[in-house]
């Protein structure tokens, strides 16, 4: 729909829509494969599929609104989000009914709840605070979440003894609410920076650095045979109650290293060109940098396709042990979400580059965004505090100590410290505007690391999810 309407728009807008349309079509295809596999119609994965379609539609419409500034897009986008939320709720309910416990036990179930909270908060932000284009940022995140779920293990795992506690639900509900509020504050801080007349090329620099960081992290697992190492885990080891450290196996997927290296060069190019532009003060380099971003997106999508095709249910030799090991995409959600996240970050930059005046017209003014960002953090911080406290109380009942300095605990405390720092600077030092926005962005980065990074990079007692 968005595609058809966009045809009357200038060339740049159409290109973007085609790009988004293609990636959505691809993602839908991936999900479709999953639906075909599972026979019955009225089940959770089909509900999720429906949610994905609606969220994707909403995301496309929000983007379309950003591009063409057609007000009716927003109405349909909200409708699509509502429909997606209903489907998502049904999926959550089905999961809850089938598992007999609220869906917080595995990374799959956590994502299910996270996406639900995100969609609900998006609608609240839109209706209550009038931040209409927030969906441009949150819907892609929701789509990534749902797509990740399609690829993760979905069987209902019985709860191991340590997880059989009411405190689990309290702890995880609080965590999801807090993280969703942090995500919202991040989106609002980004919008603030746009309204605060931050220069577009600064966003170019930030986006490029983010993407370069992603591929540098992916490549740091790049090993001797030119293969890409994917973090996999042995499913057997997850059932133990006391895991002092998760057992991980590094599995190489041959023939992908060169591809990642190529993409790394492609995403580094805009950054290099930006630096040259700053040194020579020649706008010509900036124009090339923007073109380089476009090329890098195409290459990133190509890399993602290669990665999905190679990693899907293959058997690969391991570096640490003899024999062949089964790999599935479930084994590397970290890399997968990093690749998808990089693509979306760059797409959002293109949107900003091409349609900035329209975006600015539809966003609330900078002051209002600054205040709403602060308000969302005022909600997030007490939730974070209670989440940590509930976790400590539960740990005291399950592991015999309320604080173990386990990586996840420590990182939760670091997140808390970052936001505590933000509040102190804001309340006592009167930090407003840019500095506060940077702080909110930093806070969300730490939250994301605590949520994903710690789980896959620094395993500890929290090895369940």
């Amino acid at each position: 729909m968005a595609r058809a309407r966009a045809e009357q728009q200038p060339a740049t807008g159409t290109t973007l829509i085609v790009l988004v349309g293609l990636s959505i079509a691809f993602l839908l295809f991936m999900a479709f494969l999953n639906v075909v596999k599972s026979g019955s119609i009225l089940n959770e994965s089909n509900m999720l599929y429906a949610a994905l379609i609606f969220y994707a539609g909403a995301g496309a419409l929000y983007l379309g609104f950003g591009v063409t500034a057609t007000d009716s897009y927003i109405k349909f986008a909200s409708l699509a989000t509502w429909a997606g939320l209903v489907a998502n709720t049904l999926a959550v309910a089905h999961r809850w009914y089938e598992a007999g416990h609220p869906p917080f036990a595995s990374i799959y179930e956590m994502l299910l709840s996270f996406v639900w909270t995100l969609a609900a908060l998006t609608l609240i932000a839109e209706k209550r605070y009038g931040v209409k284009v927030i969906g441009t940022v949150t819907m892609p995140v929701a789509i990534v979440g749902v797509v990740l779920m399609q690829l993760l293990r979905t069987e209902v795992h019985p709860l191991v003894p340590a997880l059989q506690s009411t405190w689990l639900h309290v702890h995880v509900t609080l965590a999801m609410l807090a993280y969703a509020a942090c995500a919202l504050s991040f989106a609002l801080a980004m919008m603030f920076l746009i309204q605060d007349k931050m220069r577009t090329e600064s966003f170019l620099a930030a986006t490029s650095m983010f993407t370069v960081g992603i591929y540098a992290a992916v490549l740091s697992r790049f090993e001797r045979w030119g293969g890409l190492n994917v973090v996999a885990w042995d499913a057997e080891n997850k059932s133990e109650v006391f895991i002092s450290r998760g057992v991980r196996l590094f599995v190489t997927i041959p023939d992908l290293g060169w591809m990642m290296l190529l993409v790394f060069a492609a995403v580094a190019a805009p950054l290099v060109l930006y630096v040259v532009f700053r040194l020579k003060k020649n706008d010509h380099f900036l124009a090339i940098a923007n073109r380089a971003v476009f090329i890098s997106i195409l290459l990133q999508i190509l890399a993602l396709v290669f990665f999905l095709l190679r990693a899907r249910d293959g058997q690969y030799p391991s570096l640490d042990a003899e024999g062949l090991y089964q790999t599935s995409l479930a084994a590397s959600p970290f890399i997968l979400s990093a690749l998808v996240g990089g693509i979306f970050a760059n797409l959002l930059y293109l949107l900003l580059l091409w349609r900035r005046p329209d975006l600015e017209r539809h966003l609330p003014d900078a002051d209002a965004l600054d205040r709403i960002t602060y308000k969302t953090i005022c909600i997030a911080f007490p939730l974070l505090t209670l989440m940590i406290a509930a976790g400590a109380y539960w740990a005291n009942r399950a592991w015999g100590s309320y604080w173990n300095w386990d990586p996840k605990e420590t990182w939760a405390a670091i997140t808390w410290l970052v936001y505590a720092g933000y509040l102190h600077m804001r309340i006592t030092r009167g930090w407003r505007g840019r500095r506060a926005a940077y702080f909110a962005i930093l806070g969300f980065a730490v939250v994301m690391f605590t949520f994903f990074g710690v789980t896959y990079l620094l395993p500890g007692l929290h090895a369940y999810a």
Partner: protein
Amino acid sequence: MALSLRSVSRKTWLTLSSIKTGVILIILVGIFSIAGTVILQRPMTDADDMQRAYSPTMLRFLDAAGLTDVFHTYWFIALLVLVSLCIVAASIQRFPNSWRFFARPYKSPDEHFRKALPTQAQIPISDEEDGLSAAERALKHLGLRSERIVHTSSFSLFSERNRISEMAVYMVHASLLLIFLGYGVVDALYGWRGFLVLNPGTASNQIELKNGATRTLPFSIRCDGTGEETYTDGTPKRWWSKLAVIDNGSEVQRKEIVVNDPLVYEGVRFYQASWGQTGKLDQLVLSATPAKGAIGPPKKISLAPNQTVALDADTSVQLAEFIPDYVVQDGNVYSRSNDVLNPAVHLIVTSKKDTRSVNVWLPEIPGVGENASSPYIFEPKDLTPEVFTGLQVSHEPGQWSVWAGVILMAIGLTFVFYVSHVRFWAVPVRNGNGQLALWVGGTANRNRDAFEERFKNLVEQIKKELKPTGVASAQAQATTTTGR
């Protein structure tokens, strides 16, 4: 060197209480905590794994710097102590001001204050008393009680709500100190953690502590049974242990503990932590049939380790050895593991008649067992492996301080973020033209947007309350000025 002791201590005090120091300390705590999650930590990692992960030089350096156990090094603890001191200093520095504000509310605004207050309005009135009572009614309408302040020759109004919110920050800071006190002081000095392994039927009061030492409890714990339930796919569903506390020779408490539901006695907590087989045998059930001569029904006997049971008047059998996972090498029997995977038992059959012992192995191991010359043929029927329950034992007297801190923090944060101290004043004044007007002003310490809205409502309400008297209606052209 003109620095006197006084000025040095004053400088230290100012540095300690500044927000900058606080933020720098927070950043330092953050950096070292990150180091503690990225570098493998000794308390959670096997020594072998540490050696595999780092080169010897690297490991020596990390150990020397305390980076392999960041959270228990003296400098990390010192850092936390500094943070606490900083919180205390900053609170003391700011508290007197807040306290004055809290204890002696500013009730009658003077002219300077009235001029500088950002949120204010002037409503023309004809009579001081009319204006004040209208304001009183308007405040009441908004759910606020007001207070008449008596001046030498006139009255003014003061009204407020949630004054306690001014103290909320100190509540949050105090709660952090309570948490530090509980975790860092009480538990660090008086708390301990250890492990206790029990077999069903045994009792113990010896706790093996984390550092390898042993702690003797003034009471003992007896295990009356333990077990595991699994899901159909074999993953554990539930581990349980029936425990009894024995104090002064008598049983004082009994509880079946499971993961997430510990037993607590005199501040010592016993958690279900692990469960497994010891690799020993609890009981073996055999059937014995005489090899020759009188053929009777097979005899059913049960044996515990090292127990001897008579088979007939002359012959007895002893359970000499139990091998949980046997393997034969060079004519000897070894066990590969402590899991009962491939069990073998060694029986000694003794006959009084010829004072001869026969070694019987089940299953028969050629070259080792002498099964053929045994007067009885044995057949294993049932085997109960000995199990153990692993209990995590901890004594954390500081946790109550921690929970109190958590609750206080929740209350404090609620006040900090969601409860706003609102104040209103109403003073009859003469404006520049000499006309009588009611000056109305207000402030809130947070959520100013909502407050402005509220203030506008109040002004409207006062005007409404003034109208019915009819006196002021002629000059109802109020001049309202509001700003940030």
